[in-house]
């Protein structure tokens, strides 16, 4: 059994699976259910100043893809709408009852040092393991000068982080917004401000669907809608890239990362960890299926680690970072070619039409003797550029991309003869 225990920015938890700051961590009742199910930690739903915010009715919208109900989820919910004192009391009770679990408190108050000082002083006695600064919420709060309105300005990120570091014993996680052109800027700012870790990504600004009868965005509130925060499986690629950018940036390399964004399975989690995440945060998958999914997250990751010979998370944490390169460092002499396993092929023709209509016309079609005979599809190897599209569309995974042994030297664009700027 691999050891899944995790320490990030000094915060310990029995496994790296935390519930992200969101409705599932809104109150003691949910959080205790989550801990009973086996979650390693929670980031409590964001606290703000009293009086509490008021949330709208009709809060979520989703992208359904071919019968999969929530490929992407969007919400227009704000931070907690419960009184601060109630949350603080429950946080203290939970932490006392579950000392081995990580309890991080997400915070969002106006961009003034006094406000932060005041709330930090109140959170401190709960015994919470750390705080997470919500610089990411893209709706509702940002119009009030909080959330992503702060996260989009690196100077503010640095400033608020510095205030918090100066006013608390607790490790400070800075949660980054993806609604920015280069995520390295706020990450660097957080580091300069003294952040112990960054958490990313927060939700992406989005209109998830338009209700064509009401002619309004969903979720629809009395015939109107607004942009919300997008999350769920569909955002994972965006999150992975942002995590990788921070992990391999010389200025932020080594800064602990709590990875967030569409994590639904242990495999997703392993990917985030391979890019340097010290813990991972999950929300949409739990909202879709309930807390029990953590069982598979835990033993799936553990079984895979056993299989690979990894004894603890640090054995593979960050292992993929050195292999994330800029495009101009890739080897132009590398060649891969599609190969169709005829025994497994079901003759659906999807590889053929994808290649014929939209790629390089590298698959030929061979008809049988009668109209009802299956058509065979074969790769024209001389024409194949190795784009992978056929293998990606194949519903039965019978196409493999075969690396060609070509015995040619490493040749990146920086050295390629076609590159006028190539270093000779």
């Amino acid at each position, binding site marked *: 059994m691999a050891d899944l225990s995790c320490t990030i920015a000094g915060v310990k938890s029995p496994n790296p699976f935390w519930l992200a700051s969101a409705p599932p961590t809104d109150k003691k009742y949910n959080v205790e259910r989550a801990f009973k199910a086996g979650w390693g930690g929670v980031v409590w739903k964001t606290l703000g100043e009293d009086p509490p915010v008021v949330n709208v009715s009709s809060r979520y919208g989703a992208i359904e893809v*071919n*019968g999969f109900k929530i490929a992407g989820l969007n919400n227009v919910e704000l931070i907690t709408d419960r009184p601060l004192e109630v949350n603080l009391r429950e946080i203290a009770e939970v932490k006392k009852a579950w000392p081995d679990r990580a309890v991080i408190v997400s915070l969002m108050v106006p961009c003034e040092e006094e406000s932060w000082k005041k709330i930090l002083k109140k959170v401190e006695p709960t015994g919470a393991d750390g705080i997470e600064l919500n610089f990411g919420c893209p709706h509702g709060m940002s119009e009030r000068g909080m959330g992503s309105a702060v996260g989009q300005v690196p100077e503010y990120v640095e400033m608020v982080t510095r205030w918090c570091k100066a006013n608390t014993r607790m490790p400070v996680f800075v949660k980054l917004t993806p609604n920015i052109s280069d995520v390295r800027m706020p990450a660097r700012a957080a580091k300069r401000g003294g952040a112990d870790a960054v958490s990313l990504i927060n939700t992406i600004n989005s209109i998830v669907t338009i209700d064509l009868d009401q002619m309004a965005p969903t979720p629809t509130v009395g015939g109107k809608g607004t942009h919300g925060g997008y999350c769920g499986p569909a955002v994972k690629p965006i999150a992975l890239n942002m995590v990788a950018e921070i992990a391999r940036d010389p200025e932020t390399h080594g800064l602990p990362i709590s990875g967030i964004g569409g994590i639904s399975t242990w495999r997703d989690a392993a990917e985030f960890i391979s890019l340097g995440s010290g813990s991972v945060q999950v929300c949409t998958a739990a909202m879709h299926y309930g807390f029990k999914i953590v069982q598979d997250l835990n033993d799936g990751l553990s079984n895979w680690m056993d299989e690979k010979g990894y004894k603890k998370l640090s054995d593979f944490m960050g292992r993929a970072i050195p292999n994330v390169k800029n495009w101009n460092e890739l080897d132009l002499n590398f060649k891969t070619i599609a190969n169709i396993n005829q025994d497994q092929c*079901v*003759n*659906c*023709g*999807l590889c*053929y*039409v994808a290649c*014929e*209509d939209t790629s390089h016309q590298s698959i*030929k*079609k*061979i*008809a*049988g*003797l*009668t*109209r*009802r*005979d*299956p*058509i065979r599809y074969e790769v024209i190897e001389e024409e194949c550029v190795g784009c992978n599209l056929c293998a990606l569309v194949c*519903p*039965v995974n019978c196409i493999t991309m075969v690396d060609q042994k070509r015995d040619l030297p490493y040749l990146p664009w920086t050295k390629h003869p076609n590159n006028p700027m190539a270093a000779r």
Partner: protein
Amino acid sequence: MSHANLGLTPRDASPGVKGGRLGPTLYGKVFCDLTAPLDQKEAEVEASRCYYCYDAPCIRSCPSEIDIPSFIRKIGSGNVKGAAVDILDANILGGSCARVCPVETLCQEACVRDKADGKPVEIAKLQRYATDAYLETFEKTKEQHFTREKSNGKKVAVIGAGPAGLSAAHNLARMGFDVTIFEAKAKAGGLNEYGIAPYKVADNFAAREVAFILSIGGIKIEYGKALGKDLSLDGLRKDFDAVFLGVGLGANNALGVPGETLDGVQDATKKIEEIRQTKDLSKVAVGRDVLVVGGGNTAVDIAVQMKRLGAEFVTLVYRRGEEQMGATWHEREIAANNGVLLKTWAMPKEIRGEKAVREMEFEYTELSGSKLVGTGKTFTLKADQVFKAIGQKLVAPTGLELDGSKIKVDANFATSLPGVYAGGDCVKEGEDLTVTSAQHGKLAARAIFAKLFPGKALPYFVPSPNPQDDGRSLAVPAPGGKI
């Protein structure tokens, strides 16, 4: 109550031939729909299983070339009307085909998901989902996609209002021809109305479909007019610019054994017609011990119906093995689920009785090389009804060249008489199926248009499953085997 269980609950198992074997409340349910229709959610889930194959094997296996992946994708996107139009454009009898097609040997057998994970996409159920929705909307609003071109001044006679004739008539009317259908019976629909087991076309579906088809306009039907009796080919050729024969197979094959004329011995198709047309199922005479001779879908249809009407024992006797039966595995499963007994490798020898049938003797058979021979050993089964279901044959119209026992036609469905076309079960091409007949009617209509309006394009758009390939549809082997 499930379809199958009902058939296993006879109420009166006494000997003889009589009606009312079931409790009176059961007759309303005895021929309920064999297959429950899909609801919207089920249809969308099933549609999502389709891979949207290119040059799809299912299309290549559909005699009427319905663009199956396309209509399924449209169901999945909520474009159910578009799906139905795709189906009906290729096959105006798409609704009945969704019910009666042996899809397990056609599109669903070819479905790549059968090969990929052992379960084909439920194409027939999806087709029914789309066409049912379309028909229901039509019945409510009287609005539909198919419209008739203005009359082109030419008249076509269609003989027979079965699937082939209806398909031809609809396509011809759409092109602007003035069509007259001559139908020997009192109703249109052909076998869908008279010859298919009622649980396959429940809720008066055949008549509703006919009403939809005729609603395009430009089609007149004269009932009670039979070719050779009330009409002659010569006369029709004089009065019309073209004639299409969709006369089906009017006669039944005989067993050719002693006792065939005894009371209680009957052609299966006659009995099915009686069951389909009766107003009171409790009046239909049902034996206690029923024998069915034959191995095709008609044999299964009559066996299951008699069982469901309360026969105590129904035995289907076929002269070869189960694999050689014309009835598909799905049909055989329906028979088995309804408690029909199957006896293979036995052929009729003699039917015995005084006035009415009492028992029937069979001889065991075996293969001698590829020839089927009797073994000399016999057995006798008790019977108060015997149904013959060993195939139908053409009542050949005079003046036409035949190809074997059927009407000879060329690739354009033209017969040996100029201006006379034929399609459906009465010609040799293709299997004797509703879907094949619909295709024949469609293609013959196009051939008639091409003949009477040479060089002119069809007045409406005909979609192609492979538009990227310049409409060159559906891979067929070219010289050298490549396409």
